């Protein structure tokens, strides 16, 4: 069986080697298709991974807030299931904001191996310096936990998150806000909330262009609690887990157990995820078209080979080769073209990635490289897709080869 395959593949290889120009064109088609497949997918997937990494590392994977997605059912409805209950004049209870029993949620979240759990309190204050006033969302955090959950430090241009612990009434805001207030590192600002006014000192600044901080400022957790008059209250629990892609499931589990809204990063970035999906659909459409076009080259090469070799087909049949042998012979021609083309394509792809990877461009003062995905997975996908396309492209003319009636050829030649 192996010997027969060897024989058939050997004949196919001989056919190809004697048809250098067609063979080269078909191989070049597959090579260019695979090469650009790799270059395009490296850029698209690379930039996607880069986006997602920024997304994952810039905030906790799951944020549990003191909100409830749907209000609890009325006691009467719960007591009389399956009936129609009319409730008159009810008022929603004015609940104390904040997460009740937050210690329990923290314990549950901490039970997930490798997780980091950061309880915090956010609230709103007005910052006032001289005559200027700016609204600010403050987030009270524990710097030791927060630095593990978000890469805050990378985004700071001046100071450090730990300054919050060493300086009484420390505050970190964005450079943009500092500029519009006209304050600098070390200056004191007045912060007013419903609970009163305090003085805070600027101990750090976030760099420009880190949009996600917006008009948010960081203070120590207990500072936020006393500033907003909510001692011991927590209204936000950030959870980070080792595998960020499980965030959705973990969030759903926490929400179902405790009732509070638990948002995964995927949910918070739903628009963005839709955008990524659209990008992927576009990318795979374009690169599939490239591979399809490449397989036309194989179809043409194998078709021409079948037409040219009709006499050989007849003679091989008369010698005792079966129809299946002939079909396999021409499929083998297509697969060999594809295999060599894929190797050439891998080389072209690697070269293109090297060129793309060496392009530098400055963003906000930093020189960055294009994020590229060079994973073996894309090479495998490109390879297997091409092989599959080539099999079909070669199989169609090969079937014709198997159906050639040797008598027609022999009669015609005689």
């Amino acid at each position, binding site marked *: 069986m192996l*010997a*027969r395959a060897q*024989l058939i593949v050997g*004949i196919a290889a*001989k*056919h190809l*080697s*004697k048809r250098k120009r067609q063979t080269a064109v078909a191989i070049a088609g597959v090579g260019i298709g695979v090469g650009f497949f790799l270059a395009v997918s490296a850029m698209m997937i690379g930039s996607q991974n880069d986006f997602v990494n920024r997304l994952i590392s810039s905030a906790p994977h799951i944020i549990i807030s003191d909100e409830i997605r749907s209000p609890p059912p009325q006691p009467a409805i719960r007591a009389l299931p399956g009936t129609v209950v009319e409730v008159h004049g009810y008022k929603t209870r004015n609940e104390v904001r904040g997460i009740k029993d937050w210690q329990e949620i923290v314990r549950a979240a901490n039970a997930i191996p490798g997780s980091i759990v950061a309880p915090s309190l956010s609230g709103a204050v007005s910052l006032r310096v001289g005559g200027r006033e700016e609204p600010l969302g403050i987030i009270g955090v524990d710097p030791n936990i927060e630095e593990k959950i978000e890469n805050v430090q990378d985004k700071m241009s001046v100071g450090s998150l730990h300054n919050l612990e060493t300086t009484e009434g420390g505050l970190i805001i964005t450079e943009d806000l500092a500029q519009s207030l006209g304050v600098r590192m070390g200056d004191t600002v007045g912060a007013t909330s419903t609970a009163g006014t305090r003085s805070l000192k600027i101990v750090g600044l976030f760099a420009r262009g880190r949009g996600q901080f917006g008009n948010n400022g960081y203070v120590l957790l207990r500072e936020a609690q006393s500033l907003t008059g909510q001692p011991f209250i927590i209204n936000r629990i950030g959870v980070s887990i080792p595998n960020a892609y499980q965030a959705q499931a973990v969030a759903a589990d926490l929400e179902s157990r405790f009732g509070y809204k638990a948002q995964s990063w995927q949910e918070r970035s739903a628009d963005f995820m839709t955008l990524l999906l659209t990008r992927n659909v576009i990318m795979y459409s374009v690169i599939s078209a490239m591979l399809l076009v490449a397989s036309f080259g194989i179809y043409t090469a194998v078709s021409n080979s079948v037409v040219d070799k009709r*006499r*050989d087909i*007849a*003679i*091989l*049949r*008369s*010698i*005792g*080769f*079966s*129809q*299946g*042998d002939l079909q396999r012979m021409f499929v083998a021609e297509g697969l060999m073209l594809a295999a060599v083309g894929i190797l050439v394509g891998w080389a072209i792809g690697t070269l293109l990635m090297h060129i793309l990877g060496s392009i530098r461009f400055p963003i906000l003062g930093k020189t960055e490289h294009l994020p590229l995905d060079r994973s073996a997975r894309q090479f495998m996908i490109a390879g297997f897709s091409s092989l599959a396309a080539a099999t079909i492209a070669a199989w169609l003319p090969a079937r014709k080869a198997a159906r050639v009636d*040797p*008598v027609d050829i*022999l*009669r015609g*030649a*005689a």
Partner: protein
Amino acid sequence: MTALMSAHALTRILPTEPPVILVRDVDLDISAGQFHAVIGPSGCGKSSLLYLLGLLDRPTSGSVEFEGVDTHSLDGDERAQLRLEQFGFVFQFHFLLPEFSALENVLMPIRRLGRLDGVEMAERALSILDGLDLAGQAQKTPDKMSGGERQRVAIARALANDPALVLGDEPTGNLDSENSARVIRIFQRMAHEQGRAVVCVTHDPTVAAAADTRIHMLDGAIERID
């Protein structure tokens, strides 16, 4: 002498409009050790009969038995296997595979059959080539050989798997008289010394004269056998 192959009421009609009758109601016995020549005017159905006997074509009606087995019951793969093991074809044109050397061409059916190891295959192919005075041509491709040499390589290929039946379709049609005489001697040797059944379609009176039996055909039917 028992027949190696026999045809009964063999008929082949091309289903065109109007239908063309290629072979009409042929009864024929082919015996081992006999050199049969099929003769008749052009278009009388000689070649069509040969393709039917060679299992390259299927009859419209009638049957072909080989070693007592009705070949009608065989599927395409089984017919191919029978050709591989038992039949050898020699055509008017050598029909060698142009990319391969003489040796590789002769090896083609041997390798496809795959019953010998590599060394034995090469030895067998070389000994067949040697028997046809082609030892020196083994490594040449067909385009480097003379017409007579090519036709003898084609005969060597037909003999590669030691067939019981050799079918020739105008094997001397493209050869000069000297090479024709040589091919005729080879065909006689195949029948008389090697005990094969030989069926040879021909226009060539010298081939007909060399044969043991002459099957005269006219309009698809056998006119007489002498």
